């Protein structure tokens, strides 16, 4: 859309688990400053696809390029160092830690007191507040409460903030970001996605909610039975056509789309 060269490209990705082929010859491209939605029925291969993209799984066949250079990842940590991170459906948040502690979980900031490294809780709180405010425009009433006490949307913001905290983040994958949220919280989360897109990130959203997909996405990548059933521009399509691609019915597109 905006940038002609894609940040990340997947070519002919095939993933087999024993005798089961979860993905067959899938291509995917994502551009900076764009929201790409991945839709599809249960078992269509959406989750496997993003797990390959985030380095959790390694593809059986096919290759990926990142900024035009070949990309090989052996673990999720590799993906993070390359600037690819994911926000999972369960958010992977420790409910009994504060938002700041969650943001830095696993990579805490330390300071030295008498030569002994100890956690720098104040610095972490300050940076967490800054990330939430500057990158996501979210201000929590208190940064000292347990994450448990926050609303669904705020928890989502904390999980997203943990990913965007890394300044070199280029691709953010979100798995069902609105599935567990009420209408108001959904609207707020969609706004967050908008904000991230404007900051030049490539945002890849997996969702079942077609309404949300049509509201935020620029392109829709439809998966069906482990294959890419089609990629359509959101502005040029209808939910009828997307549903047709998802279910495989109505393949006579001319009649349906008109």
């Amino acid at each position, binding site marked *: 859309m905006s940038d002609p060269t894609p940040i990340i490209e997947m070519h002919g990705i095939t993933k087999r688990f024993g005798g089961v082929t979860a993905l067959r010859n899938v291509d995917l491209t994502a551009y900076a400053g764009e929201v790409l939605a991945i839709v599809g029925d249960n078992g269509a291969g959406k989750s496997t696809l993003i797990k390959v993209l985030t380095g959790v799984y390694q593809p059986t066949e096919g290759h990926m390029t990142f900024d035009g250079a070949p990309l090989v990842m052996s673990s999720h940590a590799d993906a993070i160092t390359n600037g690819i991170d994911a926000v999972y459906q369960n958010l*992977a948040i*420790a409910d*009994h*830690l504060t938002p700041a502690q969650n943001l830095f*979980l*696993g990579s805490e900031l330390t300071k030295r007191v008498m030569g002994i490294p100890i956690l720098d809780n104040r610095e972490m709180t300050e940076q967490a507040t800054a990330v939430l405010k500057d990158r996501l425009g979210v201000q929590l009433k208190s940064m000292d409460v347990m994450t448990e006490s926050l609303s669904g949307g705020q928890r989502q913001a904390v999980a997203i903030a943990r990913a965007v905290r890394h300044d070199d983040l280029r691709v953010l994958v979100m798995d069902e970001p609105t599935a567990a949220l009420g209408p108001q919280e959904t609207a707020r989360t969609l706004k967050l996605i908008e904000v991230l897109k404007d900051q030049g990130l490539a945002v890849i959203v997996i969702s079942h909610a077609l309404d949300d997909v049509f509201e935020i996405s620029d392109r829709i990548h439809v998966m069906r039975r482990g294959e890419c059933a089609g990629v359509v521009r959101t502005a040029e399509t209808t939910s009828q056509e997307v549903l047709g691609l998802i279910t495989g019915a109505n393949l006579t597109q001319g009649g349906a789309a008109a």
Partner: protein
Amino acid sequence: MSAAATPTSLAARIEPYMGILGPMAMIAMIALFMGAVEPARYFRMSNINQILLDAALYMPMAMAMTFVITQRGIDLSIGSVAALSAIMMAFLIKQYDFPAWVAVIICLALGAGMGLINGLVITVFRVPDLIGTLAMDLVYRGFALVLAKGLVLARFPDLITEIGRGQTLQFLPTPVVIGLLTLIAGYILLRATHFGRYTIAIGSNPEASEMTGISVDRHRVYAYVLMGTMAALAGLMLTGKLNAVQATSAPYFNLHVIAAVVVGGTSLFGGRASMIGSLAGVLLLSMMINALVTLRIEFFWQSVASGVVIILSVAIYTWLQKKDRDGSGGMAAVIANPDNRKIGLLAIGLAVAILVLLALGAALGGPATT
């Protein structure tokens, strides 16, 4: 609790402090009760000293147990770890003429080793912590019995008795100072180190911790090593306090310590830790047991009392922590629910029955023991 207009405000504001407020309220109740019934004997300096000495023994273990329980773990082997490491230290001193300070260090190292074994049994062999540490409890106790047979080893160097009951520091007995220092160290460990932070994260959400790259198993092993070391320290303190040790020493350490930690607001369901609460819990249990003794209630009732305190505090905390996410109307609605009312009546009935039994025991047993 409060009016429907502010259904959670009071409860929400109090909640973070429940770990301290709960035991404090119970401590105040015991103090008030004893003040009314036996003020002269209970509040003597010598008795307060006795309470502190008793509490000091449990402070290091309560500190370590706070970490173990916060990680959703449990360690039932601490009594045997304490006994075995103390027995081995005693043999080193009495039979092999080791200097006391070397023996003390070896004792702590042995405790750490036993904790390491516990941790590995749980993380490598994937034995559930309850079964794993219960079985290791038998193993360690068995080794202690094999080593010491029925022997009572007594008369230790001054260093050991100083650690167990010394008064060199004037204002507080040495073991109390040691106990408080371990708790302070535990507080810092919990607040300001990776180990403390990951302990809460692991207890709160093990899968998420794993996903964020925390080495969950390694930090669980750390907690058990800390637990073993602190149990050995307690064994050492007990040996010094009594100036004697035998294989059957320290029988009910595990439940006493778990009770103290849980009463202090550390959740058995993981993720919630309160070091100050653990201190309060230790003090509460020591005061309670001392009160039972002061009231000349038969010694064996203290086990009943500890059990009741564990059940009550876990039940109350679970109830208080129930979040009103779906707007069901808070505690008033919970109480109004006919099922819960039945359970409440049952609980009250049981409490009354226990009180009656206690009164009977006091009335019948009291004169006989005096």
